[in-house]
C-alpha cells in the first residue's frame, strides 16, 4: 500500500527544511457520523523524525490536529543525500514509516 507519508526535505547550507503531509483521518472522538453515532477517537499521537540515529523532532499530537496532518520544521546538521526517517504511531497502535532522501 503506498506510504501514507509524503515528505519534502530540502537542505540549503546547514539548514534542512522538512515538510510532511500524512494521510490519516485524525478522528477526534467528538464527531458524529451520518447515523448520529460518535466516531471513536483515531488519531496519530506520536510522529518522530530521525536523522543520523538521533531524533530531530518528536511531535506529540492530540485529537485537535487536522485531518491529513501537515507539519513543517527545520533542523541543522544534515546535508544533501542524507536519510531522514519518519515514523508515526496512532492511538490504535497502527504505524507507518518511510525514509526520505534530503534533496
Amino acid at each position, binding site marked *: 500500500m503506498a506510504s501514507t507519508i509524503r515528505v519534502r526535505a530540502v537542505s540549503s547550507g546547514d539548514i534542512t527544511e522538512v515538510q510532511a503531509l500524512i494521510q490519516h483521518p485524525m478522528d*477526534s472522538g467528538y464527531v458524529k457520523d451520518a447515523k448520529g453515532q460518535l466516531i471513536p477517537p483515531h488519531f496519530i499521537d506520536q510522529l518522530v523524525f530521525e536523522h543520523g540515529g538521533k531524533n530531530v523532532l*518528536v511531535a506529540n499530537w492530540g485529537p485537535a490536529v487536522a485531518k491529513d496532518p501537515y507539519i513543517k520544521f527545520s533542523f541543522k546538521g544534515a546535508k544533501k543525500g542524507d536519510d531522514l526517517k519518519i515514523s508515526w504511531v496512532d492511538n490504535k497502535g497502527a504505524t507507518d514509516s518511510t525514509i526520505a532522501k534530503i534533496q
Partner: protein
Amino acid sequence: MTADNGFRATRRLVLQGAGLVALAGLGNVALDVAPAQAAAADKYPGKAFTLKGDTDAIQALYGKTTEASDKIALDVPEIAENGAVVPISATTTLANVTSIAFLVSENPNALAAYYQIPESTLPNVSNRVKMAKTTKVTAIVESGGKLYSATKEVKVTVGGCGG
C-alpha cells in the same frame, strides 16, 4: 476515554527498544548514551492531552506556569477559513528551546500539539489544527527551563448558509 495509557506506554517502550536495536545494527553509527536518554524524554504526555483547560494542561505538561513574551511570533489567521483546518505556526528568537506546545482554549481538550525540540532543530514549527469555535490560541515555548507564551484569538464560525 482514550485507549488506556498503560497499553500505549508498553507499546512505546517496545518500539523504542526496537529502535535502539535497529540503531545498534547500523555499524557506522556511534551509539552513545544520548539516544537512550533522548528516547526516554519522548514519553507521550497522554494525561495532558485529556485535560480540558489551558492551565490544567500546562500544569500537567510542565508543572510550571508561563509568562507572556514578545519574542514568540504566533502566526494564526484572524478569521479561520474553516475550523477543521486552521494553519498555525510559531517561531521564536528565544535561546535553547527544548519544546513548543500549541493550545486551543475552547477545544474540548486544550492541548493540541507538543513538540520536543532537540538542540540541533530550529525553534519554529508549522501545523494545521482543528478549532471547535472562536477561541484563544496559545503557543508555549520552553527555553532554558522557563516557559514563555504568546496568545492570539481566532474567529471560527459555521461556513456558508449553514443549516
